């Protein structure tokens, strides 16, 4: 017999269910007075550096219907390309930017909306720069394990062309699923869970 590696198994995921808002956004869920604000509802303040943008969109199921009970979280670098995380060793990120946001999809029209800033570029593992991107994490009733994806910016044609992750997408017509539509400072990013326009999801 060889030695036992001794690793533990990761706790298995379960769906967040339809009432995920009670735990993650209780004020949105009309449970007032427990937390002052819903965590992740505000990412920036007056002193935050960088270009103000709005990220919006919907999550659509395999029948094209908007998912009205999802919760989305985003994680991104600041305008200089630094993450507000203890594991960021390249420098101190903008203290006026959380880098993390959380938003439910609306129970009436299924739209989510984040007020944030446009992120700077961060390095890939080999030192090449990745194109500016925002990491998304989606949970909902019917989703057994949270889905990770990334949103890229349509005006970053050159950076997107040399992005190591985008380069890895074999079916080139699927690239478009990760690139938002821009109108002024508003970026629309629809996430298709299933079907012809299915978004590229990541095993990260």
């Amino acid at each position, binding site marked *: 017999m060889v030695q036992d590696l001794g690793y*533990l198994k990761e706790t298995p995921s379960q769906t967040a269910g339809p009432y995920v808002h009670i735990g993650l956004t209780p004020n949105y869920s009309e449970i007032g007075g427990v*937390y002052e604000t819903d965590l992740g509802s505000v990412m920036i303040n007056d002193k935050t550096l960088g270009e103000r943008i709005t990220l919006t969109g919907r999550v659509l199921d395999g029948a094209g219907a908007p998912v009205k009970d999802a919760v989305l979280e985003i994680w991104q670098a600041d305008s200089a390309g630094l993450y*507000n995380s203890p594991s960021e*060793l390249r420098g101190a990120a903008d203290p006026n930017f959380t880098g993390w946001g959380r938003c439910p999809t609306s129970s009436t029209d299924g739209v989510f909306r984040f007020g944030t800033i446009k992120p700077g570029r961060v390095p890939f593992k080999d030192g090449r720069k990745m194109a500016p991107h925002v990491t998304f994490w989606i949970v909902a009733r*019917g989703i057994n394990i949270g*889905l990770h994806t990334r949103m890229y910016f349509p005006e970053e044609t050159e950076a997107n062309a040399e992005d190591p992750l985008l380069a890895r997408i074999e079916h080139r017509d699927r690239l478009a699923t990760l690139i938002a539509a821009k109108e002024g400072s508003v970026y629309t990013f629809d996430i298709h869970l299933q079907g012809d326009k299915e978004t590229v999801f990541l095993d990260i």
Partner: protein
Amino acid sequence: MSDRSNSKPETGAFFARDRAWHPPAFAPGYKTSVLRSPQRALLSLDGTISEITGPVFGHSILNELDNDLIHNFARPGESAIGERIIVHGRVLDERGRPVPSVLLEFWQANAGGRYRHKKETYLAAIDPNFGGCGRAITDDEGHYAFRTIRPGAYPWPNGVNDWRPAHIHFSVFGHGFAQRLITQMYFEGDPMIWKCPIVGTIPDKQAIEQLIAPLDWGNTIPMDARAYKFDIVLRGRRSTLFENRPEGN
């Protein structure tokens, strides 16, 4: 942070997720998963700095009653109705190391199986003194604890006669966004566990057992509350034997 305060934050990429241990996206016994499951393969990406970093929350976000669901929504001098319990445990990574300073969020139904949510229509009554949400941050050894009432089972429109076992939802942050996890805790000895289509999305019986909290008699407080112990394991990081380069791996 005691003994770890001088150690460098870990920056290794995470162990690959064992997706045969987790439930698959498409699990038709749980009907809603049919139209909400991607059909294309996931695109694999060994962790870049975008995945190995993640938000960390300070204790300053916590109010005194955030980890006391018996009282955090109750009117002054009153408390929620039901079996008083303490749920506690540790957050560890796959290497068995404690994961300190991470946020956990909990939500659940009341003692009768009724959620305080506008979309909930179950006829069991709302408890005016129970909201159903709480949160805690792990200490230096990865411990967390909260007080609550034991939730009831509740019916849901999946099969004709499907009932969820008593359960508490957990949302857990690690130190990297790739560790983000949502799961559910079940109670030792509940016969409903083995009838549930959501539990049944998990293919492996041992994996299901990892979600069942045993009664922790030693930590039961006499004349007050019984205790259940629920440890959570997040993804481990590769030890940075040969890849601890701050400019990126």
